[in-house]
């Protein structure tokens, strides 16, 4: 049995043929420059800040930016997966509000475990296991039918409280060689945080952008019916996305704790907004205007650089918040325009 079909196909058309009903041909593809918008914005930011102060581009400062941005980015990757798989739907839109506090909890679990005498690898594994557990709770509740917004709101409250209860609202210092290395060490001359970020980025990028799991997750988010018809089961992907998000939040939390040399209760609430921003701003970096891992990385670094630059310039932190809010609105405007031009 030959693999080629034994038809003589009619003359192939290379030009778009108009539909039979009145109306002209559709436009062919979003222009490539759309994906470039995000990068141009980042470039503009870098240029502006470096012109405003020569300390911006100093290596220690860049290290600071990457170090802080890594936390947002890694947790942001998790949120990105949730948004990709959960889709844009108003009712069931994927969102994970518990990601910030999960990061905080992860650091606390590790710190408490190390203080209690557990060997570092075990402490790290424990922290990640606890994160994954909450991810499972989230995923299960969502798949059962509770709105992601409400589910993760509830777990955010629970986990946030756990962090306070476990520490009695007191910082737990983290003195451990592994975490010291995470903060200030290096791998073959490259600072560890950069290596960790790069490593996680490469893995997640390969998984989300280049694996069947990633592709199917996009499909599930964009059109669950199409996915079902294609033989994919959306519930598995949706539940899984929350576990992935929690795990990545856990990793980000370890990084954060190392950076602060302590596990700080309440830190989760502070970083949540930055993570959310990183996740949603991601769309402007993609030609398809969808959330992506690379886009999230760029957004996270952008946000970290923003706060950093403003601090260097002596601008009060309150303005940073306003800018972040405006950024989200800008992203939403872009998304809204995209909505209008695609006829569906």
């Amino acid at each position, binding site marked *: 049995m030959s693999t080629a*079909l034994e038809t003589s196909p009619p003359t192939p058309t290379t030009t778009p043929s108009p539909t039979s009903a009145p109306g002209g041909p559709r436009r062919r*593809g979003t222009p490539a420059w759309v994906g470039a918008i995000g990068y141009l914005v980042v470039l503009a930011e870098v240029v502006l800040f470096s012109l405003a102060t020569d300390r911006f581009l100093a290596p220690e400062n860049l290290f600071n930016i990457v170090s802080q941005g890594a936390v947002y980015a890694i947790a942001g990757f998790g949120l990105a997966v949730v948004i990709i798989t959960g889709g844009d739907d108003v009712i069931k839109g994927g969102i994970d509000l518990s990601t910030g506090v999960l990061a905080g909890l992860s650091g606390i679990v590790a710190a408490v475990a190390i203080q209690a005498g557990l060997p570092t690898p075990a402490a790290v594994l424990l922290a990640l296991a606890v994160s994954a557990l909450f991810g499972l709770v989230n995923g299960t509740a969502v798949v059962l039918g509770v709105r992601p917004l409400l589910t993760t709101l509830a777990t955010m409250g629970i986990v946030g409280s756990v962090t306070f209860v476990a520490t009695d609202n007191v910082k737990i210092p983290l003195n451990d060689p592994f975490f010291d290395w995470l903060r200030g060490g290096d791998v073959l001359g490259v600072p560890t945080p950069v290596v960790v970020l790069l490593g996680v980025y490469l893995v997640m990028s390969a998984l989300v952008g*280049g694996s069947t799991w990633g592709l199917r997750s996009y*499909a599930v988010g964009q059109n669950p019916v199409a996915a079902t018809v294609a033989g994919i089961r959306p519930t598995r992907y949706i539940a899984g996305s929350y576990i992935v998000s929690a795990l990545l939040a856990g990793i980000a939390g370890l990084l954060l704790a190392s950076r602060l040399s302590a596990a700080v209760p309440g830190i989760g609430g502070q970083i949540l907004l930055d993570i959310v921003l990183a996740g949603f701003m991601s769309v402007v970096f993609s030609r398809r205007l969808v959330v992506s891992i690379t886009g999230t990385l760029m957004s996270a670094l952008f946000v970290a650089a923003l706060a950093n630059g403003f601090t260097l310039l002596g601008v009060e932190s309150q303005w940073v918040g306003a800018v972040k809010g405006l950024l989200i609105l800008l992203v939403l405007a872009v998304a809204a325009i995209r909505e209008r031009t695609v006829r569906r």
Partner: protein
Amino acid sequence: MANNPVTDHASTVPAPQTELALSMRGITKSFNGVTVLRGVNLDLSAGEVRGLVGENGAGKSTLIKILTGLYTADAGSIVFNGENVTISSPADAERLGIHVIHQDRHLAGRLTVAEQLYLGHGEGSRGFVSRRGLARRARRDLQAAVGLDIDPGLLIDDLTVAEQQLVQIARAVLTRPRLLVLDEPTAPLAAQEVERLFGTVRGLAGQGIPILYISHYLQEVAQIARRVTVLRNGANAGELDLSDPGTELADVVELMIGRGVEEFSDHDQRRTDARATPLLEVTDLSVPGLIEGLSLTVRPGEIVAVTGLVGSGAEALADAITGNTRHGGTVAVAGKPVRSARGFVAAGGAYVPADRRRDGVLMRHSIRENLSLASLGAVTRLGLFIDRAADRSVAVDQVRRLDIRPTDPEAVVGTLSGGNQQKVVLGRWLAAGSRVFVLDSPTAGVDIGSRAHIYTQINELVDQGAGILLITLDLEELTGLADRTIVLYRGRIRAELPRRDAGSDRVLALAAGATREADPYHTGSGALPATESETSR
């Protein structure tokens, strides 16, 4: 006779092999007490292209959904390639190799062609997807499977409808299907695209794949299929072999609509006052890609029906006229130009939309709340508060008038049968005292009893001077009610027929693309006139 679609097809349709690939027997299905399929049988041989035809509501979609696992039959059996099978989910159907190309293209908009092509099977090796490799494969496979040559990096959203459909078909072909169902595939296609599609279909049949071809366009069915199974009202109406020289398309139509069409009203065409201000005046209506240059009027005391097949623009007409979608051209209600849904309603218009559950009734509201939605002014005191007593009495009134069951005005509308839900929608407008009604497929999915009630109401309204624009694909309904019938074809008005000329067969023929107005029964051959595409060759 030259260009006779019936006899010409013999050379182009492959002869079916004799083994039975599919045998569905005694398929029965009910929803909420309404029987939709009654002991339906369907056979399909390997390499055969079988047409499945029937009016709207005849049960074709339900049958297909059972075949593909979206529904489960209440009774009956399916034997596929010699084995008794149970299909309880789309995954089961996929595993058996049964593929459907749906009318609603189930595609993910922001995926590339290549990604969508292989989604769910064979996207990559060992879990990883190589973009370049995928694109290369896609280009080659698209070309081979359906003769489509486009950049596989394009997003699905950016393709034309025809291209999307071909991607869908290519997708199905790549999975080496053992049965393919095409559901209204040519509705959005232009003539040359239809030809391309037919070429693909013939090729697939030539490989031994059994194909079920569902379409309202009988001319096309005749070109691609030899045998045709006709469904009517959820049961088999008959099976015809189009290669038999004694069989004509008129016979197919006859089976589809049946003899003894029940006339819900045997009145003569109503005489309307041509000088009266039209209740509805549509001038040069256009909706990009769907409708162009459409004008019609509805005068007091008449029922104007509009009909057309999938892709004719009839589905988009109601939303446009009632101000719920943007359109070019003008619409005037009782002489007043209207541009929005609110304007339409304020001028005395009423709209009973096709999607009753989403756009018609408020499913999670009570009957009472639903009934007063368009006439809140009448039950509001001081412009602010709802007068509960008045609200309730409006509800009781309409429930009685329309015989809505259950009779409790607090009953939640989502629990009502389709027919009763539709009565609630109608009641809403009756309570608002509307003068002109736009009804879009008002009795789709409605039981006989409720239908009768609704028809009675419609006739009563018209006798009292209201005007009705009835958009329907139900030929029985049309012939029973319409004073004038407008037939749409590919976005434009094909014909406007007075009552005496609007027999079901004539209407269907016009809707399916026949151009000549001549009565087919007088040409002598019994065949329907050729389509435009054939005469232009």
